[in-house]
């Protein structure tokens, strides 16, 4: 399977970018939870990164075209595991997004991100269209996309549902949709919104309104945004220094080790640290995009683009949220936020990128 030519083409820079960001993540997590009950989380994160890297390397062993053959099967498995979440949460009312396998908690919604990328790539690879796809050809991709998205939204995990949709629509734009179809889709989408809105209960409407305008909930989401902005802003140009952040330590910021890790980082390392992290993500994304267009086939190009868009949207939305530019949604910052399932899905994505990258010269 592995021949020597593959090793010479191994994409070391990509792996190194990922490792640097992960290292920063562990370092930052140590500070975020320093002196807290969860102060051991950084060690668990190292373990997760280790497991993630192992799966990354495992994925590079087989030719990625092999995954194309199993794309729909994999998609089916991820749907079944989403159903399992509902059954599991019906039995365990205290959890709503997880299933427990042995000692590990596992979040199938994360798996669905990869499953959607592979399934859409297989479909668009199988039916190539140079002049763009019309609505009829997009029915099947819409189904692929909307079934897991709705299930995840129902959990309720709005953040992940939105990221699934963003990844899917990015891929559809990438493979080209006909202008006419795009316009119809947008108009159609907008016109059914009022009907859906009327269907909602008042409290659901309120939740959605505060989702888009957190200042409507100054005691909840709006307050978290303010605290996150204060944390980041008080970091100034060079930051308060490692372990010196105060704002994030006092639980003013909820989930300072998951959704709001960037606030911790920017408070302690200032604008300089923030920009360095941003630059690292940008490098990673540009590198991944380069893999996509240099891929030797359509399937590889679409998969690589899907993984890149997954990283891109998570970075933009997570940091945008911490900066108070975006609605508050639970979306992890890739390789930085604590969380096994999120690390795993990102690392699997990186494995696919490496796989596509190292096989582009081999026919």
């Amino acid at each position, binding site marked *: 399977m592995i021949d020597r030519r593959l090793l010479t083409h191994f994409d070391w820079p990509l792996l190194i970018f990922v490792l640097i960001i992960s290292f920063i993540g562990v370092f930052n997590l140590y500070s975020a939870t320093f002196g807290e009950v969860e102060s051991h989380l950084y060690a668990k994160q190292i373990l997760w990164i280790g497991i993630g890297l192992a799966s990354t390397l495992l994925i590079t062993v087989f030719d990625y075209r092999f995954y194309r053959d199993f794309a729909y099967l994999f998609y089916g498995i991820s749907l079944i595991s989403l159903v399992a979440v509902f059954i599991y949460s019906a039995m365990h009312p205290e959890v709503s997004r997880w299933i427990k396998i042995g000692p590990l908690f596992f979040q199938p919604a994360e798996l669905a991100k990869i499953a959607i990328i592979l399934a859409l790539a297989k479909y668009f690879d199988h039916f190539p269209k140079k002049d763009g796809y019309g609505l009829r050809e997009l029915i099947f991709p819409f189904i692929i996309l909307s079934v897991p998205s709705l299930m995840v939204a129902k959990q309720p995990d709005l953040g992940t549902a939105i990221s699934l949709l963003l990844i899917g629509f990015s891929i559809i734009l*990438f493979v080209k949709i006909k202008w006419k179809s795009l316009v119809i889709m947008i108009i159609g989408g907008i016109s059914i919104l009022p009907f859906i809105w009327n269907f909602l209960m008042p409290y659901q409407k309120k939740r959605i309104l505060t989702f888009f305008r957190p200042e409507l909930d100054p*005691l909840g989401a709006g307050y978290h945004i303010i605290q996150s902005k204060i944390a980041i802003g*008080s970091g100034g140009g060079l930051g308060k220094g490692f372990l010196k952040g105060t704002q994030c330590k006092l639980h003013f910021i909820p989930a300072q080790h998951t959704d709001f890790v960037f606030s911790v980082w920017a408070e302690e390392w200032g604008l300089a640290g923030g920009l360095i992290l941003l630059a690292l993500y940008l490098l990673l994304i540009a590198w991944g*995009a380069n893999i996509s267009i240099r891929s030797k086939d*359509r399937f590889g190009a679409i998969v690589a683009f899907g993984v890149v868009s997954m990283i891109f949207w998570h970075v933009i939305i997570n940091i945008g949220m911490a*900066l*108070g530019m975006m609605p508050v949604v639970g979306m992890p910052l890739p390789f930085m936020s604590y969380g096994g399932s999120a690390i795993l899905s990102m690392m699997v994505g990186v494995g696919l990128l490496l796989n596509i990258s190292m096989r582009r010269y081999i026919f």
Partner: protein
Amino acid sequence: MRLGSQGIEDLQRRYKLFLIAGLIGFLALGLRMWHLQIIKGEELSRLSKHNRIRIREIPASRGMILDRKGRILIDNRPSFEVLLVPEDIVDMEKTTGFLHRILRVTPEEVGKRLEANNHRPPFKPIRIQSDISRLHLALLKTHQLDLPGLIVDVRPRRAYNYGSMASHLVGYLGEIDGRELKRDRFKGYQMGDIIGKYGVEQQWEPFLKGMDGGRQVEVDAYGREIKVLQRVESHPGNNLLLTIDLDLQMTAEALLEGKEGAIVAMNPQNGQILAMVSHPSYDPSLFAGGINHDDWETLIQNPFHPLQNRGIQGQYAPGSVFKMITAIAGLEEGVISPQEILFCGGSYQLGNRTYRCWRKGGHGKVDLHRAIVESCDVFFYQVGQRLGIDTLAKYAKGFGLGKPTGISLNDEKPGLIPSSEWKKKVYDEAWYQGETLSCAIGQGYILVTPLQLLNAISAIATEGILYRPQLVERIERANGKVLKSYEPISIGKIPISPENLMFIREALLGVVNEDRGTGRVARIKDVTVSGKTGTAQVISLREDVAEEDIPYEYRDHAWFVAYAPMENPIISVAVLVEHGGHGASASAPIARKVMQKYLDILKEEGKFPPLVARGREMDSLNSRDFTR
């Protein structure tokens, strides 16, 4: 396999477009960081010191509790409270010393309060004392500047307009504890919140609570408010309209004054509770701001158990009241007919044991009607013996005994209806026939709550339908709009034919209105009161002991269960007086006064006497009755 890079040229063409879009996104993030950290950096870093932006909550005022006519039983009043924010306290010793001097709160007590709240969100004020006087308020206010971390705030607190009236029913409040916080029901609650802990306050907590508001405030380095940034008003909770009638409840409370026992009154046509009294009672205002340790100890160590709601938690032998069920079982099973005559010579022999009748000389020749009216034990020993315990148990259960009625109050007790199977399971012993005799007259293992007996007789009084006792008629929003109305819920039909139902009603009428009836005391002029007396033995005694000679705690419990008027029952009532002696003397007069009072209330409203007998027209009269 497809050839090489086929089908990706078109993808490559749009590559730049995506890259530019991505770059714009990153640029926006970078600019925003620069804006926050450089341009607004100084301002935000000032706010970050001492966490200058805080949330001060505005607690919602809890929904009111009203009687069926909208009279306020419980509402809220303002209370001045002293709170501490430990994070802001500069000199702990000085602060606690000051509190000790002014409010007489020892530093240890303050320490305990802080300890109890150590899992609260940071900077959330901790309540130290409620209801401080105006003088103390003035003192605290003048010293507040020297004592950072000390807050005086006004918050709503429960006001009990009628003291301990209906305290078991409405329940009490308390601070949420760690165990409750973990439950799904209390999602969104925080340490230090006050919740309903008992009674209606607990059961309807989600409706009563309301929505807390809050102020987002900027404070100075000492935790003092500088300005309010945002404000969210609190929303008061919903009001509960109980099915209780205030006047009737007050009358019932007065009738039990100085006694231990319970009175429960109900509208038998729909199961609405009209009054529910349990004595001794407690003062719910002790709990309003979280009860203190000493008060709690006093309450739970009181030998008369003031916290127990005897109406639903007191389990007693039903005594002769149970004979109405033995009679119905006998009629339905055909082991006795209304015509059959049995002889009572004052005792009944079974094997080598003698079972006595309460009347030493015996009743002579009696039929079923007279046996109920005069409560002849010997007659029912024989009916019970013919039925056997398991048939008797089946009928008792058919009347809702032996299981909770399902009233929406916590810890309702099920009572106990024994059967041979039950005895095998619990004692691993066979059932003795002699035990059947005891059970047939409501002694022995049988246990019931006053509410269960009330429910059973209410079903007899009407069409045989058992209702789930109902306490809350409807829930109204603060603006008066009805949020939810509760309809009567039928939980079953008692096992009885129409003829037998008529027969038993006649007998219960006789208990009160015939000259030799045991319930004569409950007679009301021109009203067909019907009922049954009962005496629950606490322990078996020799028959020749005079009642005055029996120690109080061994004296029998007195029962009277009744309804009125027979043609169209509008009220049913169960009275139990613990250690009251005979039902006829201790409980029947109380039941009479309760029914009389309710008839007077209805008369005043022009709703009594009813114009038509039972029938369709009656329904409309009744429904008018409940909608005020």
